[in-house]
């Protein structure tokens, strides 16, 4: 859209309008992102001698991370978490809900959408506690329902619990995105598919999917980015027991504030920033091609 200065603001005043926002963004987003590179090259710690006089150690933090079994562990758990709860879980459940709800009765549609949305908008500390309660060993609702008394889900199956939790927590986004995507599919084509007797699977594959391919990619990229950066697992398990649910964000926190290894944690944050950058670049590229 061509910008025409219809209020007669003028360039100078326009710059003055943009500047305060840019200053804040510069201080609290751009600077920290760049500074994490520098801190990541030092042996800076929260306490002790290195907290006063940090030394430059170069790439030691990165090479240290590569041989740190805990880092490898958290990388693997993050992949599991993203793959299970977002790529597969939220994607498929979100699409299925959007698809099934199209023909559903009004009250059912409202009820399901309302509940799924509520799971998404409630504050993370509250939903984390709701799940701690449901999964509790002694009084939890899940054990009562499944008749499995004494099962401590968060201790015995921490990763599965986190994946199911995140499926519950985040499906709303995929559901909303896919229901607006499905509006694009022309009903006449679905009708034709039905007339020629196409099965449900081939209808989805040959009629629906070509129309929503772009949405699937957008959705997948966004939920991958958010899930990889999600700190809520900390609220459920804090990474335990014995690092068995320590995804990357929790690992960074534990290294930085638990062990005080700020330099090391910063180097790993920088790796996470790079991953985010790659995902975001692909996403913007996609947006541009579609726009």
């Amino acid at each position, binding site marked *: 859209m061509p910008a025409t200065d219809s209020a007669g603001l003028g360039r100078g005043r326009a710059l003055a309008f943009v500047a305060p926002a840019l200053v804040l963004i510069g201080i609290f987003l751009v600077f920290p992102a760049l500074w994490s590179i520098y801190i990541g090259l030092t042996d800076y710690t929260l306490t002790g001698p290195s907290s006063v006089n940090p030394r430059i150690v170069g790439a030691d933090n990165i090479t240290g991370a590569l041989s740190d079994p805990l880092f490898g562990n958290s990388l693997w758990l993050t992949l599991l978490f993203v793959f299970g709860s977002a790529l597969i879980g939220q994607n498929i459940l979100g699409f299925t809900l959007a698809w099934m709800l199209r023909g559903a009765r009004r009250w059912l549609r409202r009820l399901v959408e309302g509940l799924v949305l509520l799971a998404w908008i409630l504050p993370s500390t509250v939903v984390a506690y709701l799940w701690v309660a449901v999964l509790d060993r002694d*009084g939890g609702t899940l054990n009562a329902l499944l008749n499995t008394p004494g099962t401590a889900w968060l201790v015995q199956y921490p990763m599965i619990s986190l994946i199911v939790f995140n499926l519950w927590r985040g499906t709303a986004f995929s559901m909303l995105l896919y229901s607006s995507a499905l509006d694009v599919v022309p009903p006449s084509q679905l009708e034709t598919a039905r007339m020629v007797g196409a099965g449900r699977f081939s209808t989805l594959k040959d009629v629906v999917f070509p129309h929503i391919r772009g949405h699937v990619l957008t959705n997948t990229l966004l939920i991958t980015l958010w899930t990889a950066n999600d700190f809520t697992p900390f609220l459920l398990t804090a990474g335990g027991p014995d690092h068995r649910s320590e995804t990357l964000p929790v690992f960074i926190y534990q290294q930085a504030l638990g062990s005080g290894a700020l330099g090391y944690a910063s180097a790993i944050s920088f790796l996470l920033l790079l991953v985010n950058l790659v995902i975001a670049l692909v996403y913007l590229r996609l947006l541009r091609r579609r726009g």
Partner: protein
Amino acid sequence: MTSLVLRRIGYTVFFAVILAFFAIPMLWLASAPFDSKPGLGLRWPDWTFGNVTATLEHPYALTSLVNSLLLCGLAMIVTTVLAACAAYALSRVRIPGRDVLLYLLLLLSSVVTGTAAMVPIFVMMYQLGLINSQYGTALVIAGGMLPAAIFILKDFVDAVPRSYEESARVFGASPGQILLHVVLPIARPGIATIVVWSFVQAWGNFLLPFLLLRDINSQPAAVLMRTLYDEGGSANLTVIPVFSLLYSIPVVVLYLFVSKRYGFRFHGGIKS
């Protein structure tokens, strides 16, 4: 015929399972606050309002909600005002390098997450002596929300026809008057969206206040919630359910308000 019946059954079972999956964890939030002996499991409550009184008397419960109001109110005001000014100028005036700037902002809004930047932000605030400063924390939160807020608002401003501003200008209104009396009223739905969105985002934010506000007297509800259940103990079970309910209500009310008033607008990529 049988396949139709089977399909019907499958359909019903699917929705029954979905409803149970999504509702069961939340039902506790409706029953436990009013149960005289609240437990972790779900049960029909033995009705009482005693828990509410106990929660209100808790030394930190109300304080933390007030802290939340202060923190989120401040972050919301800063975000809305700065984003509105920036979005307007970026929409109407061709500042040199505007397109690059917009691209970078969009990139920043998703790349520099709280998790990825927590270490440098913590170190920065620590060295500036701003740990436990509510104002400092509010600014950090606002800084994180600004790129996305600018984008949402710019979309709104782009959709506002320029003819209003132009005709006001023909009648000799100054830029200031035009902004205040012409642009602001038309952009109100956009601004309301940002007000609600930024408030809700800040209200739910746990990580930044958890990192930066270590003193319980300055902590918002998000952090107190965690402190309450991390310590455990049976005494807190009278407080936690009511407190979670009090803490959740504003978010739900604001969402209902926005979706009722302006329809649920779908802004891809801005929740988190």
